[in-house]
């Protein structure tokens, strides 16, 4: 390694100069931090302060910079030195803003600041400036899988932005589900009548666009590589395979209607006159091609009465059918009722619903249907009994409290069944047992059965399709990165991601197209996609030390690590999101980043001064997730919410990156307690790395054994869920924990 020269800079602005003894901090940096160059400045982030640092870099040969000022989340533009390793000691949000400005607090506040200086100096020495991943690809072509409204919109939007697109559609024509519709729910003023689907127009745009290459009757035989350098084999009907170089992928494979044959009590599959919404669209299309009259399938007589059964096999609390609301079917039934009323107001149309869900302008559409004479009855349909050419619909009238209500002589019954995602193979069902170290549990109640056909045929070690979350919909970070899957550079859009209607699908498509473009651009530059977008660091592995335990390859939430034939891990840097989960998982600690490693954190833990047990100054280590907990702590500072002066906080990339050695080291060093602050995990996760906090927690659940071997109380380690909004709660948690530890007593490891 080349020679390093570390410099420490202490800022006196923002009240730091008044509240802290900055001269003492400079001395600490020199003496304990052992940096050859340490200075203070009245206002470090201003032009003069920054110029001072730049001058030291240019003329003093400074390579490593430790800045003792505000939080690492503040002033990132001023303190931007891409060629250098930089560490930040958080003296403002992390010290003076969370401590009272009183004489008696002065000493402990100064202690805190001094420790952060020691930690910053130790951290920066363990770092190198990240150089960026060089294993990149340059393909700027987008692959769109699925030629429905979502897929076509994605292709058109990407093409408009100047990127070339390969679109693969499994059927013989573009249009997907929307192509089968007679008309669509209106999306423009006055929201009163069904509108043209617009599918023909979209399809001709796609076909006429020289930037878009369309494969019909085609599927993906193989997807290999990483963002920027995917190699995709496309199998066509003729048996020929075409290979395309792809930068990023948008999967828009849509949905299938829930099978109405699973609803025999509602007459599904029992009579040709009981149909689903797709069935009615087909009848309406046939009618429009003929005399305009929708006919009863059993005997071709004109339909005089029709009943729509909402939520058929949906919102089912029993776990037998879909548990969710598909969101589009209320409006779809209203639209379909209008197919009848608009041609013949004399047809009796009744919609039986429990809750009519028509958000936004759907309300106008609903009102228009009422004006047209569609009858809305609030009730729950219990049974549809077909009898010859008609049916009897038995329902519980929820307004009139009539449990035996019924409608007789109904010509046609339309079941509003919901959307089931076309998401390919549920790979989590394959990998989960390995992660949790137990045998595969039976699939959860209400899950849609595993669909056997893979869509992407990824060659990834973790399975051929993108992971799913619940009910077969693909996993995405619902709150922050909705189109993101757990496979970098692969995005899902439309109803494969969550149930939605055409308008939402088009919005999704546009969003996903732009995210995919970002991903392939970042990949070419060797930079991370979000949440660490622009990050140039990436995991490096010292293979000589690897024991082939496979933990990293199994745990990586993003499927970035494959295995070679000797079963060593193979990192695909462009697929990596830089969460550090692999680093946390590795039992022999051979995985590290240039600016984040077992050493950068370990050195900080060791740099803290641990007063002896008689000083009544306990020390609590906090490992705080940089995405949520750390900002919450910073914001607590901004709101001047005070917390204990005995904590020392280290930001971590993700709870998943926490290596148990840090905790063992901290306890051995005499810390009285360790708090781990990470995002919520489980189905309702908020973790930016999706599975990171969950995997971290699984790992930490074994910490009790460590505590036992050390003969320590279980209170010494605390795992906490912290959200970015916990600005009030987090100081409270800290103070409570600090009080609890006083009761437990000082760590017996102090002074060793």
């Amino acid at each position, binding site marked *: 390694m080349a020679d390093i020269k570390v410099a420490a800079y202490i800022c006196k602005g923002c009240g730091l100069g008044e509240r802290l003894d900055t001269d003492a901090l400079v001395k600490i940096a020199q003496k304990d931090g052992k940096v050859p160059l340490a200075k203070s400045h009245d206002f470090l982030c201003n032009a003069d302060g920054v110029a001072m640092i730049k001058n030291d870099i240019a003329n003093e040969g400074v390579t490593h910079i430790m800045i003792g000022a505000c939080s690492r989340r503040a002033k990132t533009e001023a303190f931007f030195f891409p060629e250098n390793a930089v560490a930040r000691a958080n003296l403002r949000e992390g010290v003076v803003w969370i401590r009272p400005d009183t004489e008696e607090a002065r000493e402990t506040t100064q202690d805190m600041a001094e420790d952060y200086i020691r930690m910053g100096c130790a951290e920066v020495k363990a770092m190198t400036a990240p150089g960026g991943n060089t294993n990149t690809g340059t393909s700027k072509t987008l692959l769109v899988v699925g030629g429905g409204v979502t897929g076509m919109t994605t292709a058109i939007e990407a093409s408009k932005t100047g990127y070339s697109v390969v679109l693969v559609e499994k059927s013989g024509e573009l249009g997907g589900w929307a192509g089968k519709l007679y008309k669509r729910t209106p999306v423009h003023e006055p929201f009163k009548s069904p509108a043209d689907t617009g599918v023909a127009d979209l399809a001709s745009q796609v076909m006429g666009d020289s930037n878009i290459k369309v494969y019909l009757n085609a599927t993906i035989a193989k997807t290999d590589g990483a963002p920027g350098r995917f190699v995709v084999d496309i199998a066509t009907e003729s048996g020929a395979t075409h290979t395309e170089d792809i930068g990023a992928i948008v999967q828009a494979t849509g949905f299938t209607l829930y099978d109405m044959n699973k609803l025999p009590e509602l007459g599904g599959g029992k009579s040709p006159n009981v149909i689903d919404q797709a069935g009615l669209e087909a009848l309406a299309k046939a009618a429009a091609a003929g005399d305009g009259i929708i006919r009863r399938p059993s005997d071709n007589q004109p339909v005089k009465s029709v009943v729509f059964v909402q939520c058929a096999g949906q919102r089912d609390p029993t776990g037998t059918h879909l548990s969710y609301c598909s969101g589009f079917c209320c409006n779809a039934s209203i639209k379909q009722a209008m197919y009848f009323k608009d041609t013949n107001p004399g047809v009796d149309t009744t919609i039986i619903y429990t809750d009519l869900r028509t958000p936004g302008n759907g309300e106008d559409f609903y009102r228009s249907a009422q004006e047209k004479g569609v009858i809305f009855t609030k009730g729950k349909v219990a049974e549809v009994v077909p009898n010859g050419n008609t049916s009897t619909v038995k329902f519980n009238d929820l307004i*009139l409290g009539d449990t035996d209500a019924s409608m007789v002589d109904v010509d046609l019954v339309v079941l509003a069944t919901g959307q089931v995602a076309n998401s390919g193979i549920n790979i989590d069902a394959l990998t989960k047992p390995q992660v949790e170290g137990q045998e595969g549990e039976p699939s959860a109640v209400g899950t849609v059965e595993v669909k056997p056909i893979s869509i992407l045929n990824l060659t990834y070690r973790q399975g051929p399709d993108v992971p799913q979350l619940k009910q077969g919909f693909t996993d995405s970070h619902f709150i922050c990165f909705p189109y993101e899957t757990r496979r970098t550079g692969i995005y899902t859009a439309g109803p494969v991601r969550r149930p939605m209607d055409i308008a939402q699908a088009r919005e999704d498509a546009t969003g996903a197209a732009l995210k995919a473009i970002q991903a392939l651009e970042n990949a070419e530059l060797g930079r991370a996609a979000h949440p660490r977008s622009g990050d140039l660091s990436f995991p490096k592995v010292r293979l000589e030390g690897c024991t082939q335990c496979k933990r990293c390859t199994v745990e990586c939430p993003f499927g970035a690590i494959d295995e070679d034939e000797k079963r060593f891990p193979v990192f695909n840097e462009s697929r990596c999101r830089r969460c550090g989960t692999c680093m946390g998982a590795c039992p022999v600690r051979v995985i590290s980043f240039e600016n984040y490693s077992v050493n950068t954190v370990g050195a900080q833990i060791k740099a803290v001064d641990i007063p002896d047990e008689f000083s009544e100054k306990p020390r609590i280590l906090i490992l705080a997730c940089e995405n949520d907990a750390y900002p919450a702590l910073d914001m607590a500072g901004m709101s001047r919410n005070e917390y204990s002066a005995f904590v020392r906080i280290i930001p971590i990339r993700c709870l998943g990156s926490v290596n148990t050695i840090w905790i063992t080291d901290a306890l051995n060093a005499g810390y009285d307690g360790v708090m781990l602050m990470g995002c919520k995990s489980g189905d309702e996760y908020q973790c930016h790395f999706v599975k990171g906090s969950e995997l971290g927690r699984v790992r930490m659940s074994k910490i009790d054994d460590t505590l036992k071997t050390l003969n320590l109380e279980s209170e010494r380690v605390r795992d906490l869920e912290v959200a970015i909004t916990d600005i009030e709660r987090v100081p409270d948690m800290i103070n409570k924990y600090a009080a609890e530890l006083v009761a437990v007593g000082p760590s017996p490891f102090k002074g060793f």
Partner: protein
Amino acid sequence: MSANTALAEKYRNNFLKEIEEQVEMGDWVKMCMQCGVCSGSCPTNFQSAWEHPPQELFMMIRAGKREEVLTSSSMWNCTSCYNCIVRCPRKLPITHIMHGIAEYAHRLGMAPKMQPTRFFSGLFWKNCTHTGRVNELKLSMGLYFKDGLGAGIKEGMKMKDVAIGLLKAKRLNPFELFGGHKCKDQKGIQAMLKKAYEIERSRKAAKMAG
């Protein structure tokens, strides 16, 4: 065939259509979205609990419950407070519809005969159109004796302190029982009302005939 059976026959399964065509503002019934705000807002519904609050009446109409709706006492309980109209998110003129349905039921002879507000409405109308002025004494006596002599005396005794108070304050003149005061042009009033009746009757007859 009575008016009722004739109309029932005419609209057979479509009571909603009947209400739309026959009841004042009845064409609004289909626009109700069953939110229940009207029922929750109605002060009389809280007092004595209507048999069927407005929301439910509208649903019954759509469900074709003709007999139950028209013989119901519910809409007769409406005091025209207009709370529901103000609050209905769908802007239904509920108060007017309540009176419209009541009036239609009355027209068909299906309204509950001794329902107090219905009975009082009739009494009031007869009382004030007779002389052109309301005779308060006769009006209240009429209401007291609605359910027969015994009940009337009992009701009257309950109110005797009030009556004595009114007498003392010269707010009640016992001689009003014998004729009472009248308006100046009694004949003119009668003629006006007769004309209005005729106009109304022919309008409704035309409607009922379709």
